[in-house]
């Protein structure tokens, strides 16, 4: 039983199915241990967005205000996709490397400890 309902075999409308996003998918990006940005970010972007564009334009636009952002050594960044280690291909599209609708991309920047070392 997927819900307690008075109607037999009740199913709910999937409000966030990918078809509702006008050709975009939702992708979440979080920067671990940098909580000045209170929560991960929700982006809506076409599935054929390249990872390079996500990194250089969308992520940079979002996090540029953080004093650690300019210090990121992008070679050293560890990425996670839906909790699993992930090696992104900058030239390939999100869809081609398994980043699907409502996926979570996390970036870890070892050595950068946030504001005053507080992980902010």
């Amino acid at each position, binding site marked *: 039983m997927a819900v307690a309902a008075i109607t037999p075999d009740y199913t709910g409308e999937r409000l966030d199915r990918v078809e509702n996003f006008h050709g975009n998918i939702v992708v979440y990006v979080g920067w671990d241990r940098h909580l000045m940005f209170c929560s991960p970010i929700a982006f*809506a972007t076409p599935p054929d967005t390249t990872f390079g564009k996500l990194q250089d334009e969308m992520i940079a636009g979002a996090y540029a205000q953080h004093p650690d952002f300019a210090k990121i050594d992008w070679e050293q960044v560890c990425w996670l996709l839906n909790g699993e280690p992930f090696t992104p291909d900058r030239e390939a599209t999100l869809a081609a490397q398994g980043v699907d609708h409502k996926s979570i991309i996390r970036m870890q920047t070892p050595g950068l400890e946030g504001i005053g070392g*507080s992980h*902010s």
Partner: protein
Amino acid sequence: MAARKLNLKERYSLLTRDLDWEYSYRDKKEIFPYEDFEGIKITDWSKWEDPFRLTMDAYWKYQAEKEKKLYAIFDAFAQNNGQQNVTDARYINAIKVFLTGVSPLEYQAYSGYAHVGRQFSGVGARTACQMQSIDELRHVQTQVHAMSHYNKFFDGFQDFSHMHDRVWYLSVPKSFFDDARSAGPFEFMVAISFSFEYVLTNLLFVPFMSGAAYNGDMATVTFGFSAQSDEARHMTLGLEVIKFLLEQHPDNVPIVQRWIDKWFWRGTRLLAIVAMMMDYMLPNRVMSWKEAWEVYFEEAGGALFKDLARYGIEMPKYAATAIAEKDHISHQTWSTFYNYGHAAAFHTWMPDEKEMDWLSEKYPDTFDKYYRPRFEHWREKEQAGERFYNPTLPMLCNTCQIPMGFTEMDDPSLIAYRQSVYQGERYNFCSDGCKDIFDHEPEKYVQSWLPVHQIYQGNCGGADIEKVLSEYYRINMGKDNLDFHGSPDEARWNAWHNLESAEERLKKAG
């Protein structure tokens, strides 16, 4: 023939139990179609003990007297320009949160109790719910009346019911009650009467009402007092429901336990906003959120669950997580609203030095380590004329709908991420509690109206965020939102009290 005067007991029974009748030509299941589908077994409704012996005529008389007193005080408050006598205009923002976030829940409660007050086949339960329904309608009315006075002098009050239905952070309380009201009648009672009114309500009302008292807001204190005797009745109803369900049939125990687990968790998530109100929005602090939580949940709730153990009921499943969160939740929630202060219909600000010291003292294990450096950075930015606003839209939890700003309790600088895949689609959550709720009833929560996703789907007036905020949410941009410093609220307050703004003081000093 002179009518014989009835004694109290007779009147009570005539005006409650005797309102029922035998159903002779319709099947009971047709008359009460909602009573079975949740799996709750009721073997004997006559075992229901009316939690309060109150007849309708006594009820009307008593409530009318309270109303008279209440409105006399509202009048006096208005005539004496009570709005000028609160501690500080920042305080008013707590009241904006209350009017947009909490008062509409009173209305939802009115509607929910009216529904279950029709659906139970036991007449005692029906009558109790109908009375509570009328109480709740009274609560929303008196709250709106009390706060309408502030609407004349401060921004952010004008469209509270419209905002409740649309604004991103108000989807948190709204969806909480939508969830309860769209559940079956027994779950509704365990959710609202027991888990919320009995277990958690003191954490909502005591902070707001004593916060009001500490900050010179007599209008709010008065409606609080006027609701208090109603709340006492609501709490006894909550306890009676639980005892009745548990005594009726052993098969009810696991169902009730699951509802308690769910609604305790949903309730603690909802209370995050009260936590930030207590620690950040009251110029005169009552006690810290952490202290309130210890008194009203850990002590009082602990005793209650010890008492319920004889029925086989245990502490709510994620109580340990909620207890650990008492050191973090207010700071994380205030951070979220500070991030998105441009998108809120109330003002945010950074605590001043004295207030930071108070937070350090109340939260010795966490504030200096995790939060103070962040807040000092934000304060420096503000002083440099670059007040920090987060330029993005946040990821939300699919269950509680709060931005994903809560962290792991064993590693408090790491956001807690949880994910489920249901029928090929990903769903994301802020906590084990929220994930469990989804996993148990996915067909309900696939329907979550998540404000950020709705914006991206184009359902909130298009892709221009300014327009979403100003036209779809009806936030008066530049007035209702942004930092308290520099707001028209602050300017008016300073003019009433002949105070200089922070900016003017800086200019003179420089």
